[in-house]
């Protein structure tokens, strides 16, 4: 299971005995502009299900405030900090070798990150460098080598046992609650690994959608629109409802492809996977690919004029009505005593 070099890297006595019992997980922290992404806290919770110790790696050009935020997260014992100008834009080319070197230094048995765009970009690269098969978007951890994930757009649930020595895993954030924050618990230390610049890739820039509404993946209430909205202007109806409810706004692929809203709002198999307390689907038929992204919502409300729309098969509350009349009426009546 363990190669000799990995064993050598495990610290302490009775290395061979420890190798069988001792699990240690490295969680890759995700952050942006001094703010820790909450998916990291879900990954910390998942890491605790593996058993053993949990360390966190904070890599980037500016890590100070992230370390400060993370040090209060319950469940981690150590934070490794790799602050380096070569990590500008957090490109996977310099980041993956850093993670691999860190794994080899400390002999981690598991490497975890959230299954966000960032985690999906970096972790498979790490896994290939370690010659292991990564496990994507895990929804449950049975034990240190057995994991549950969905396949076929959430229409089948696969339980698998990994044969690899090091497990490289991205976790579905909505399946694990965020680790609670308490007093400062974890200590931090600077990484001793070198970070090489990436001569073959260059970060040019980001164009982020600005919004005052809650972040889609972590919102408690989500109002989503589909093709039925007919135009980008008509999404205004949903924004009004969302603002009254303190909700985030999402969309089906049809609405994104038609140019009504930007792609980062897409909910589904190939967009974001959500599990809010309340999901209001407006003018969305409910294709398999969309259901994959929202069917774990606690309560689903569907407003659609087609009584045969598949969305009604998963909706807790279904209203067959013209959305252009129903949504303004709902916006007006909601919140009134």
């Amino acid at each position, binding site marked *: 299971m363990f190669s000799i070099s990995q064993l050598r890297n495990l610290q302490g006595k009775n290395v061979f005995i420890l190798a069988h019992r001792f699990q240690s997980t490295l969680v890759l922290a995700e952050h*942006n502009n001094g703010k820790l992404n909450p998916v990291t806290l879900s990954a910390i919770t998942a890491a605790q299900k593996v058993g053993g110790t949990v360390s966190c790696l904070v890599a980037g050009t500016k890590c100070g405030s992230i370390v400060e935020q993370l040090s209060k997260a319950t469940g981690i014992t150590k934070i490794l900090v790799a602050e380096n100008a070569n990590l500008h834009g957090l490109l996977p080319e310099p980041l993956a070798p850093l993670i691999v070197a860190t794994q080899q230094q400390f002999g981690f048995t598991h490497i975890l990150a959230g299954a966000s765009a960032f985690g999906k970009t970096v972790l498979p690269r790490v896994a*290939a460098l370690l010659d292991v098969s990564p496990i994507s978007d895990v929804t449950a951890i049975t034990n240190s080598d057995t994991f549950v994930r969905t396949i076929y*757009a959430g229409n089948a649930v696969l339980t698998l046992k990994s044969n690899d020595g090091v497990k490289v895993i991205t976790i579905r954030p909505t399946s694990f609650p965020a680790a609670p924050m308490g007093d400062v618990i974890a200590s931090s230390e600077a990484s001793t690994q070198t970070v090489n610049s990436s001569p073959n890739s260059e970060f040019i820039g980001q164009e982020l959608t600005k919004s005052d509404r809650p972040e889609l993946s972590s919102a408690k209430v989500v109002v989503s629109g589909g093709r039925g909205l007919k135009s980008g202007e008509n999404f205004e109806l949903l924004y009004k409802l969302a603002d009254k409810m303190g909700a985030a706004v999402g969309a089906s692929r049809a609405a994104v492809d038609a140019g009504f809203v930007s792609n980062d709002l897409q909910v589904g198999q190939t967009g974001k996977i959500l599990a809010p307390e309340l999901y209001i689907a407006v003018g969305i038929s409910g294709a398999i690919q969309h259901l994959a992204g929202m069917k774990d919502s606690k309560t689903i409300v569907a407003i659609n004029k087609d009584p045969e729309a598949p969305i009604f098969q998963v909706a807790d509350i279904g209203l067959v009505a013209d959305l252009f009349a129903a949504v303004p009426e709902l916006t007006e009546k909601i919140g009134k005593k």
Partner: protein
Amino acid sequence: MSLRILVGVKRVIDYAVKIRVKPDKSGVITEGVKHSMNPFDEIAIEEAVRMKEKKIAKEIVAFSCGPAQCQETLRTALAMGADRGIHVEVAGPQYETLQPLHISKMLAKLAKDEQIDIIIVGKQAIDDDCNQTAQMTAALLDWPQATSASKIEAKDGSLQVVREIDGGLETIKVKLPTVVSADLRLNEPRYATLPNIMKAKKKPIKKLTPKDLGVDVSPRIQIVTVEEPPVRLAGAKVENVDMVVEKLKALGHA
């Protein structure tokens, strides 16, 4: 420029099919079920063909790994504009536990053998939903990666790629050789016309085994079970907006 592009295409159960889990929980039923090319791979092929049409690329090699029926998937790629195909045959229980790591090793080996400049694959296959192959292939070759691409521009030995990320879009520049994965919005794949389907029948498909490429396909995972997801009970339809509000209030949302 005269680049050579390698495109990975996967044969998957058609996206519109409602899949069924086998009663013995060993997998999903694939026999007698409609299969087609993974939708993201159609986008990958389309992008490669557009590069050829813009004279950026000179040759497109389509690759597929799986049972004999993958030849049909390769024929579709050839009909869309790929020049030749490579089929690595893996079937039966070996195929059940085949992982993106195995495919990445095949792609990496082929990239070297065929002197490839750009590998394009879909960002994920809609059956295993892994989203790993491009990243792993790039790692094995020590090439840069540009995943979830929604726009690609080739200029002086580099690709400038707009990537779809969680908060919006990101632009990066990667030097050739490189690996790209296609997101949904990269392009709209063309339909293969009948004359092109006929022509594709004459294009060569080379057949190889994993052994030919020196790739060990021994299982990295064991399938414990494949089960149906919990079924959501359909709720009630209500008559009007007032009743929606009332129900939401009862749930503490209004």
